[in-house]
């Protein structure tokens, strides 16, 4: 044996450490475990609680049933009692544990009796253990009681021993997840003694109870079972401990069991048995279902779903694979997963054919499985019979129409050849009919094909094979041909329909793979939460044929009170609280689930890597089949992962903006304080002078002009700052409208007429320039800023040129001067806020060009700056825009 086998597996260790960590945040679950009612579990629980209370723990009673036992009732006295919640169910009042009050009361320990209890309809959860899970999740420790007969994996055995079917069952993994299990044990004699003394039930009830349940044999068997379970648990704990502490010990060399499950009710027994076996062997257990071409009836599907749910409850990992060959699928899987033991059930032998098949199945499994052990579990006749009665009917799944059509087609074919009988002879008819049967097999199910095959052979025999109009066949070769005809027709039909069904299954798989691919592709090409959501909604509608709605969380980790995409779903208060619950507990809830099944929708959490991104509400018309559920569970993480990435990206962007704006703030401060002070100083100085002293008329005029200039400068600074802040905050959305560029340029040159006076201004703008869609005011500012900039930098008398043209969907605006251009270090920074070139003139704010850039980008355009070959600066703006030909409008209106 390989040495490494004995060493603790690091992954397992990590898992167990993680589990510990997880557990420490949760509350601890302590179970008081007994063989049956009356052994004193509740009493022991209360005693234990009392000890803790003396030590100072904060303990409340969530739900305790005293069964009118005096000693128990006396113990309850000392504890704070959380009042039970009352529900009205079919005009009777029922009382249940008040889950919300307990959680908001947040004691250290809460006592909750009878963990396997089923809640009254209308409660949040179907089962009390789900309530308890929620209490544990909120960090509260729970003491509770369980009887052995309530354990899911033992319920069947208990039913066999006592003859009583237990309905209130507890999933095994809940029991196994308990942090502590304390056995409350009593010898059978003592229990019977207590019973007869009326200490367990009130005297009038005890007789009946004793007769039905409390037989010494029963009690002994239950006791053995309870003790063994706890012993196994201790064993497992020892094993875990050794693994944790790296103690080499009686290491079980990786027992991996695989149980093959079918769609029969028998499989539930098989699962339980396999679970017990794997527990005893200390191995790990998986279950497999092989999907074949066989079309499941509704009943069979329901059974399969039940089996899968049972497996989940028993904590068994369930896998579904598709393959027409069950044996091969099981063995392949087993080899891939290093399975050491395969467990299968022995189906009931109904007839020779199934006997043959079974033999074949078992033989092949044994032959192919090599060194893997194979266990075959005997069948339970009773269960199988029940199943057969129900299941045999719906095997005729094809509709009546198909039968009719098959009959008609065969009859018509036969009729045609009956007329042609004289010319073609009777033998060729068989081929025609055979042909017809094969064709039908492409479209119809197995039943109609069987009918068609039988019918055609009868018709051929009766009408065509001599002697006609009798079923009698004269020649032996005809007899042989008839027999062959029948078999070929049958085989042909059945094989074709089987291939078809298999093909359909594969097609479904393929469609799903394709859907995953499409979704992944679509999501990666999308950005922005809103677009992601609408894509997801569209894809879900397409592939699942259901309506859905995403409710996302906001920054404060609350669910948003609006839905970001269009939806037909409406949520009531109640449904919103289900959404909230789903979000908080990362567990699906609502319709078709065990939690809050009252709403119209099913809610699934959108689990991200760390947190939930929100929930998705789904409007089912029927519950997902197992295959769909798997598909769905593969689909959702892709969407929630993408949403998480989008959230993260937003957060990253926000923090970037924050740090940027911090930097900006400092620059702004430095720049502004300078830029503001200069004009303010001028205004103050000049106005002081005007108020205080008598100046000559000449000087007074000059002072006034200085004040005026300073004010204009201040105003320009403020305008620039305001524009910048509008651009930055994204509040500036261009008002796109048709613009006459001639008008626009004229406006700018007129308003800058003074500044441009000393330049040779050259406007290159075609006369037939079409109208373009822009924000007139903003674009005016762009050209204004660029020209103003140029006029400040370029030497007087030099040429300034504005060139505007339209090319292939883009408007180009170029502004050129013969100024100093840009230095190499300036070039990448010219559009930065508050950046002032090395040669900038005094009085600028360093905002002009960044405003230009902001406006151009708000138009979805680009702007570049470069040096001209013969000196000077060149700005090129490129904006995508529509055009409208002036001439067209002209013609239109002259009519």
């Amino acid at each position, binding site marked *: 044996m390989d040495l490494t086998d004995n060493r603790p597996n690091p992954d397992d260790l990590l898992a167990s450490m993680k589990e510990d960590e997880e557990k420490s945040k949760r509350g601890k679950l302590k179970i008081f475990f007994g063989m049956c009612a009356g052994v004193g579990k509740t009493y022991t629980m209360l005693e234990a609680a009392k000890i803790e209370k003396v030590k100072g723990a904060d303990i409340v009673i969530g739900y305790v049933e005293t069964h009118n036992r005096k000693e128990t009732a006396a113990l309850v006295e000392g504890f704070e009692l959380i009042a039970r919640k009352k529900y009205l169910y079919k005009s009777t009042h029922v009382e249940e544990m008040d889950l919300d009050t307990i959680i908001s009361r947040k004691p250290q320990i809460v006592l909750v009796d009878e963990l396997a209890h089923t809640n009254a309809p209308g409660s949040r959860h179907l089962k009390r253990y789900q309530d308890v899970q929620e209490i544990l999740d909120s960090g509260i420790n729970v003491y509770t009681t369980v009887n052995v007969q309530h354990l899911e994996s033992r319920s069947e055995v208990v039913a066999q021993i006592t003859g009583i079917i237990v309905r209130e069952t507890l999933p095994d993994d809940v029991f196994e997840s308990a942090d502590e299990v304390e056995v409350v044990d009593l010898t059978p004699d003592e229990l019977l003694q207590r019973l007869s003394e009326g200490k367990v039930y009130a005297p009038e009830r005890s007789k009946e109870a004793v007769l039905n349940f409390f037989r010494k044999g029963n009690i002994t068997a239950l006791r053995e079972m309870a003790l063994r379970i706890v012993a196994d648990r201790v064993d497992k704990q020892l094993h875990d401990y050794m693994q944790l502490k790296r103690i080499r010990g009686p290491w079980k060399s990786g027992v991996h069991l695989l149980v093959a499950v079918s769609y029969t009710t028998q499989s539930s027994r098989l699962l339980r048995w396999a679970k017990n076996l794997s527990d005893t062997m200390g191995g790990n257990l998986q279950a497999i279902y092989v999907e074949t071409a066989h079309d499941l009836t509704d009943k069979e599907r329901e059974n399969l779903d039940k089996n899968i749910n049972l497996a989940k409850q028993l904590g068994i990992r369930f896998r579904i694979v598709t393959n027409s060959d069950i044996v091969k699928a099981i063995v392949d899987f087993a080899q891939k997963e290093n399975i050491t033991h395969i467990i299968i059930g022995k189906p009931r032998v109904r007839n020779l054919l199934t006997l043959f098949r079974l033999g074949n199945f078992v033989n092949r499994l044994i032959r192919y499985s090599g060194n893997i052990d194979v266990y075959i579990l005997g069948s339970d006749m009773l269960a199988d019979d029940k199943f057969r009665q129900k299941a045999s009917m719906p095997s005729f799944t094809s509709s009546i129409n198909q039968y009719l059509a098959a009959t008609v087609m065969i009859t018509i074919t036969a009729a045609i050849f009956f007329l042609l009988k004289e010319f073609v002879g009777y033998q060729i008819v068989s081929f025609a009919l055979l042909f017809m049967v094969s064709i039908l097999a492409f479209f119809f199910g197995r039943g109609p094909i069987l009918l068609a095959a039988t019918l055609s052979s009868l018709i051929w025999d009766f009408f065509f094979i001599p002697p006609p109009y009798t079923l009698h066949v004269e020649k032996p070769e005809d007899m042989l041909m008839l027999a062959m005809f029948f078999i070929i027709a049958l085989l042909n039909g059945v094989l074709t329909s089987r291939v078809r069904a298999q093909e359909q299954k594969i097609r479904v798989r393929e469609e799903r793979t394709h859907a995953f691919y499409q979704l992944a592709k679509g999501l990666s090409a999308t950005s922005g939460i809103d677009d992601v959501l609408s894509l997801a909604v569209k894809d879900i509608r397409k592939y699942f044929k259901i309506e859905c709605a995403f409710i996302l969380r906001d920054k404060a980790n609350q669910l948003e009170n609006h839905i970001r995409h269009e939806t037909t779903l409406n949520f009531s208060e109640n449904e919103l609280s289900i959404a909230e619950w789903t979000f908080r507990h990362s567990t699906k809830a609502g319709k078709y689930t065990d939690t809050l099944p009252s709403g119209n929708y099913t809610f699934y959490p959108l689990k991200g890597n760390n947190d939930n991104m929100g929930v998705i509400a789904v409007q089912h018309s029927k519950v997902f089949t197992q295959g769909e559920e798997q598909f769905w569970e593969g689909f959702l993480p892709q969407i929630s992962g993408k949403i998480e990435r989008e959230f993260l990206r937003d957060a990253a962007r926000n923090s970037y903006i924050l740090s940027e704006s911090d930097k900006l703030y400092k620059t702004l401060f430095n720049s502004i304080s300078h830029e503001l002070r200069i004009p303010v100083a001028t205004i103050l100085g000049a106005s002081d002078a005007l108020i205080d002293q008598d100046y000559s008329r000449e000087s007074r005029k000059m002072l006034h002009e200085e004040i005026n200039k300073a*004010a204009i400068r201040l*105003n320009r600074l403020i305008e620039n700052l305001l524009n910048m802040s509008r651009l930055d905050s994204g509040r500036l959305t261009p*008002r796109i*409208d*048709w*613009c*006459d560029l*001639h*008008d626009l340029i*004229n*406006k700018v040159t*007129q308003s800058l007429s003074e500044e441009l006076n000393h330049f040779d201004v050259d406007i290159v703008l075609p006369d037939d320039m079409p*109208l373009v869609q822009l*924000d*007139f*005011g903003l674009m*005016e500012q762009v050209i204004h800023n660029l020209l103003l900039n140029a006029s400040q930098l370029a030497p007087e008398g030099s040429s300034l040129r504005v060139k505007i043209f339209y090319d292939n969907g883009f408007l180009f605006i170029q502004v050129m001067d013969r100024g100093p251009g840009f230095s190499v270090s300036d070039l990448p920074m010219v559009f930065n806020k508050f950046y002032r070139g090395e040669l900038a003139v005094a009085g600028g704010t360093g905002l002009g060009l960044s405003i230009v850039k902001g406006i151009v980008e708000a138009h979805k355009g680009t702007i570049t700056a470069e040096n001209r070959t013969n000196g000077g600066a060149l700005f090129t703006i490129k904006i995508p825009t529509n055009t*409208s030909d*002036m001439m067209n*409008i*002209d013609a239109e*209106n*002259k009519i």
Partner: protein
Amino acid sequence: MNEKELILIVDDEVQIRRLLEITLSSNGYKVLSAATGHEGISQAASHPPVLIILDLGLPDTDGFVILKKLREWYLKPIIILSVRSSEDDIIKALDNGANDYLTKPFRTGELLARIRVAIRQNQGNSDNPRFLFESLEIDLISHIARKNSEILKLTSTEFSLLALFAKNEGRVLTHHYILKEVWGMGYMEQTQYLRVFVAQLRKKIEDNPAKPKLLITESGIGYRFGS
């Protein structure tokens, strides 16, 4: 002008009020001022002014509300004087009955000119079918426009447009308003028509269409006609 014309200023800023009071009274107007919207309305009712200068950012009520209330009965010019400079605000004010709109900071010369135009337009005889703007002459009755005494060849749409401008001399007309008046309700978003016709009209009526003096573009808002 027998009596001094009364102008009401509704503005909450003392400095602006004082500045306006000084400039307006030294230009021959009588001035009344109010610091809140309600005070403004009651002042306007008790002493009907020839013109109201209204600020939009008032402490008690939104200026737009005051504008609407005034326009229920007050038919004389209202000029908006506000720090709000967005095109949306300006258009909204004009569409709600303001005659003109100036943003703060403003040049007093400009304000005085606008006041004069508004008052003149309001007092002018609205029945007068003949208009004269420098060398441009418009006769609404005979449907004729002359430039330097030469008859202009105008299409009927061009003439309707010119007539509309002439009747609203000095006043800013928003794109929507012009389109509605000349082309009809269904054309209110078809600004491309307006652009084309304004360009054509300028070629015919302006001395230099590249430097229009009569038909002025108010960026993003509309047009103003008049010298």
